[in-house]
């Protein structure tokens, strides 16, 4: 038997998008609406799909070929609209390709959207069966795994309560545990880790690692580059419906870590009315930059990161203290930092525009996503000006190359910080502890 799990050849998928037109007058609108409905009617009567102009067509996937071996865990990433989800939809047979074909060897299970088909009026117990059947499990299979599913979801007490009474966390846990107990040879996962609370995400992740260790094939679509590097040895990068890179995860991802990838690296308030502000200071913008000064929202764990705050001082003669706070994805405050620049410390400032920059050294934060809060207070007297949560965010990637604090360990390290510590190990001879004890 061949060791190929998924083989995709020249796969393309075309979508038609609605035509956008400018309407200048109501009369135009009416005639246009009439014309459109007449055209639709005639198209319907003739039983023909419309002939769309070329610019109303988008190729969600264009000529994609790839092979995945059995037991391989492959990450798929890329900007929104790059065709990642379309690929999964074709592989799960939800939608058909326009051209090309794919061969799949093994039962496919998907976590495209967990909780699909849950009915809010039904109880947890009933939904386990319904959802299981929808995901392709046989009733006997669900019977067999029922206790396991319930235990994993931690909702024993609410098993006979309609799920509409569940908290969203309970709902997610139940949905994921049903999906996680599918036993397909090939598992397709789309961004499930982005939902639910932190402990739930951790559980999802552990389950996926377990599935991988069982030798099943995983295709993991995510924007969470940290999660991809940890779970998958190989990553495929999609851009504009095509594969733009395919190789070992750390290589593909570091090539993807080009500046200006996302919008979370910068936040600007153009309207002064809406900007966070107090009587004395007003926020203008917050930016994350690499050493080279590029806007960046994903940073290698070994690299330093610049965090800058642009603000206006509206009233003279106050001592201004800008500060940042950094939270991990569980909402834990990693640390906060106050502006210590001696140039303006303890000095009243004139009115004007300022930029304060803080440097986060490399090898300080653990891998994961951090969100930044920015605020300004005055000192002497302390007057709160503003504090804004989640202004910008960035991902820290620990790229497994062996020279970060994780060393050669490839698993989940946990924690909020990951400093490089100085380690020393001393050799104290070859005599065992027991020998020493018996001697003395």
């Amino acid at each position: 038997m061949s060791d190929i799990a998924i083989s995709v050849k020249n796969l393309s998928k075309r979508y038609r998008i609605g035509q956008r037109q400018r309407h200048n007058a109501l009369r135009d609108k009416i005639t246009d609406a009439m014309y459109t409905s007449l055209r639709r009617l005639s198209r319907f009567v003739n039983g023909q799909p419309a002939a769309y102009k070329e610019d109303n067509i988008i190729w969600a996937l264009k000529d994609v070929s790839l092979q995945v071996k059995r037991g391989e865990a492959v990450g798929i990433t890329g900007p929104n609209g790059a065709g990642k989800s379309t690929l999964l939809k074709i592989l799960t047979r939800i939608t058909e390709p326009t051209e090309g074909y794919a061969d799949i060897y093994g039962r496919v299970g998907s976590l495209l959207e967990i909780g699909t088909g849950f009915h809010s009026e039904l109880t947890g117990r009933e939904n386990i069966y319904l959802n299981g059947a929808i995901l392709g499990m046989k009733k006997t299979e669900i019977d067999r795994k029922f206790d396991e599913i319930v235990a994993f979801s931690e909702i024993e007490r609410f098993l006979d309560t309609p799920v509409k009474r569940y908290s969203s966390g309970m709902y997610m846990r139940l949905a994921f545990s049903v999906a996680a107990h599918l036993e397909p040879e090939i598992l397709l996962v789309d961004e499930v880790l982005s939902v639910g609370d932190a402990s739930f995400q951790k559980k999802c992740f552990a389950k996926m690692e377990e599935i991988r260790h069982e030798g099943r094939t995983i295709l993991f679509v995510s924007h969470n580059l940290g999660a991809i590097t940890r779970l998958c040895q190989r990553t495929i990068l999609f851009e504009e419906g095509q594969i733009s890179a395919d190789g070992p995860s750390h290589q593909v991802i570091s090539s993807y870590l080009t500046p200006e990838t996302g919008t979370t690296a910068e936040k600007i308030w153009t309207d002064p009315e809406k900007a966070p502000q107090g009587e004395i200071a007003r926020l203008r913008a917050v930016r994350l930059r690499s050493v080279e000064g590029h806007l960046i929202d994903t940073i290698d764990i070994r690299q330093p990161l610049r965090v800058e705050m642009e603000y206006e001082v509206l009233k003279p003669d106050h001592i201004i203290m800008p500060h940042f706070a950094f939270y991990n994805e569980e909402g834990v405050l990693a640390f906060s930092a106050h502006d210590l620049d001696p140039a303006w410390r303890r000095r009243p400032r004139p009115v004007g525009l300022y930029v304060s920059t803080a440097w986060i050294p490399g090898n300080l934060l653990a891998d994961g996503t951090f969100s930044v809060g920015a605020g300004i207070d005055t000192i002497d007297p302390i007057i709160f000006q503003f504090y804004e949560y989640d202004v910008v965010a960035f991902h820290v990637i620990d790229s497994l190359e062996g020279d970060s604090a994780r060393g050669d360990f490839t698993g989940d390290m946990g924690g909020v910080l990951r400093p490089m510590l100085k380690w020393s190990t001393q050799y104290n001879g070859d005599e065992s502890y027991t020998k020493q004890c018996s001697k003395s």
Partner: protein
Amino acid sequence: MFKLELPENKDIPELSLPKTLPHFNIRPSHGWVSLKLKDIWEYRELLYFLVWRDIKVRYKQTVLGVAWAILQPILTMVVFSIFFGRLAKVPSDGIPYPLFAYCALIPWQLFANALTASGNSLVSNQQLLTKVYFPRLIIPTSAVLAGLVDFGVSLLVLIGMMFYFGIVPTAAVLTLPLLILLTIASALAVGLWLSALNVQYRDVQYTIPFLMQFWLFLTPIAYPSSLVPEKWRILYGLNPMAGVVEGFRWALLGKTNGIGSLIFVSALVVAILLFGGLVYFRRMENTFADVV
């Protein structure tokens, strides 16, 4: 420098994987496609669970619960008895008018509810269509089958009424299962067309209530089909529910005549509609997830 090799990959446990893996070939479908009715059989458990879901949730959070299943035909029967039976003096083939009307109303309710449910089924289950693969045919089919519970309940009321009016069914009652099957098949036949059309043209969901109103009067429910002149009888039978309703009266009340030609025309029409519906549904199926 970088180590790709992970220790756990060395021993991929072959034992956890079945020896023969199912193989799926995914490619664009062209031209005529097979009906793939075998798929439905493979997914019969899903069909069962969807029917079960529809039945379970139907009367959740209602005060009257399953009483709704009998209230609708009973109230309609009362209205018909007053206006058509008493005031307009519509003939009822020698059967007490309330029984005459009710006996026709229960297959009609089954048909009307099943047709409405299946016509809207794909749109109301679009969350499933866009997230999971399964033979799409299961959705309108389950919507039709879920109506059988209501039907069963209202049939019990009919038995009670027959007892009250002292009517004993003849051996013809044995054909009842076939007639129920024909009702279901009629609802599914039309439901397949409407559900597939509804995916692209939401006009359908506004058409269905009107359609059912007209259809109600084209069917011999408030009046006997013997009112229709003989020469129009075959044409009248093109409405499959005409044959079904008269069949019900014949099977249960045993007093009508002229069932023969009607029922066979009806059965033929249903067979043609159902086959056409299946073909149309299968042809449109692969665009559902993109269009809905």
